[in-house]
């Protein structure tokens, strides 16, 4: 009997294995078929209903940093999917959750601001994300630097840029160029006197020749702006008095409007156009 049972076991095992393989092939084929059926999805719907990160932090049982990483990785994939039209609707909420879960994680602030600026075209939101990051990390120079850069390049709000660069240049670890950006923002804002003082300080404390050269070029630019503004004012006064434009800049001295004619940082005279009354520097600061 045992030998008969052993003999019967062989075909039964073979049948069982064949059945197993058959079922395996069947469900794999079914899966492939099911995947071709289009199902309606609401992309990102799960993340939208996540509560505030402030409470989620405690629900992660000590793994808040890991949760922040996973949500950040998800957000990168989500926001780089161009077919999701309304993906920017909850940009603020998503990056606020990441910030609450791991406030010291800097990459999401930068990436969130980049997405807000470059893709969502919501510059106010970019500032909100970066300001939130800076509030949580007051010693990180990178965040106000990014905000200053956005203010300067995208918003063209030079006063706002000045404020941000002023914040970042005094923080530990901030590179030297942040002070130069501050000085440049002052110039673009029109605060030429303070810009001059700052560039002069940069020039006098420059650690290398390259920085000295950069500062020198900017000093030339600022002085030219100060001088040409003065000369244009003087030309305007001359025109009011004489009813015509001066023939040359020396007329301004002869008329007693100016004591002497200013010269640029290289000792050259400014160029005057008697037809239009325009005044400009003899050379470009960047071609000296």
């Amino acid at each position, binding site marked *: 009997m045992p030998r008969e049972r052993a003999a019967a076991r062989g075909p039964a095992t073979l049948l069982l294995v064949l059945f197993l393989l058959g079922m395996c092939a069947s469900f794999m084929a079914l899966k492939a078929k099911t995947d071709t059926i289009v199902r309606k999805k609401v992309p990102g719907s799960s993340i939208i209903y996540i509560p505030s990160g402030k409470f989620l932090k405690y629900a992660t049982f000590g793994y808040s*940093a890991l949760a922040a990483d996973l949500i950040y990785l998800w957000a990168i994939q989500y926001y780089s999917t161009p077919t999701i039209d309304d993906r920017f609707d909850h940009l603020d909420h998503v990056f606020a959750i990441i910030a609450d879960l791991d406030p010291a994680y*800097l990459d999401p602030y930068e990436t969130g601001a980049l997405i807000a600026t470059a893709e969502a075209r919501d510059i106010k939101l970019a500032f909100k994300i970066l300001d939130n990051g800076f509030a949580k990390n007051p010693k990180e120079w990178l965040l106000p630097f990014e905000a200053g850069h956005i203010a300067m390049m995208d918003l063209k709000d030079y006063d706002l840029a000045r404020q941000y660069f002023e914040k970042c240049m005094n923080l530990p670890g901030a590179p030297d160029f942040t002070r130069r950006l501050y000085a440049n923002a002052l110039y673009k804002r029109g605060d030429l006197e303070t810009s001059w003082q700052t560039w002069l300080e940069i020039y006098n404390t420059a650690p290398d020749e390259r920085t000295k050269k950069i500062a020198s070029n900017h000093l030339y630019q600022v002085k030219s702006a100060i001088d040409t503004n003065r000369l244009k004012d003087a030309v305007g006064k001359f025109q009011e008095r004489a009813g015509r434009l001066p023939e040359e800049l020396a007329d301004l001295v002869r008329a007693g409007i100016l004591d002497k004619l200013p010269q640029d940082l290289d000792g050259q005279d400014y160029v005057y156009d008697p037809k239009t009354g325009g005044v400009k520097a003899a050379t470009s600061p960047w071609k000296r």
Partner: protein
Amino acid sequence: MRIWAIAGITFKEAKRDRILYLLFFFAAVAILASRVLAILTVGDRVKIIKDVGLASISIFGVLMAVLIGTSLVYKEIDKKTIFTLLSKPLHRAEFILGKFFGLVLTLLVMTAGMSLIFLVIVYLHTFRIEWTMLVAIAYIFLELVLVTAVAILFSSFSTPILSSIFSLAFYLIGHLSWGLELLIKKMSAGAGRTAAQFLYMFLPDLENFNFKTEVVHNLPIPAGIYLSSFLYGVFYTAFILALAVIIFRRRDFI
């Protein structure tokens, strides 16, 4: 001496348990997978690797402590080998402590293994040995020691399934003490507030052993917290073990 004999036997038994190797395998997979996950990020890849690695060591370590610890004493009772053991000149406290130290030794070996894999992965990315990670790992291990004690406590009087549930509940409560703190702040003075304050002080606060975020971000850790967290872990573990010994001493196996 008898404690260490029991500990040695427990260690040998535990290292034959397949669950241990299964969990170790998944922990290793999770740590290695962090390299792949890190590719998806924009910015610092090493941060992702460190977070996933430390979380894996912690989560799988807790699972090892709970799944093996909750069956340690119960198995002896179920297989009736407890009678053989207790008929020897072996105090019940020595039995419990031996089981505890045996499992702690097992967890030490497993944690060391997981940590080695983790540190190698981090080294391959940073080309330097991140000694600060060892701080987080050391306190994760201390947390595991406490969870082990809890698992043995429940194992001394309950079935493995219930012991696992209670031990995991202990772990979750340990990471939710913030809730009590919030509640106390909102309560007005009185018996209720006093009771809540007592509960807050009495229930475990496992966040004391959580330095993962600080070491990953290189944030300063106050020097005093190292010793106070360590002593908190030691004393709480001693308290739990004492409770386990008291319960086990009074237990009748017939």
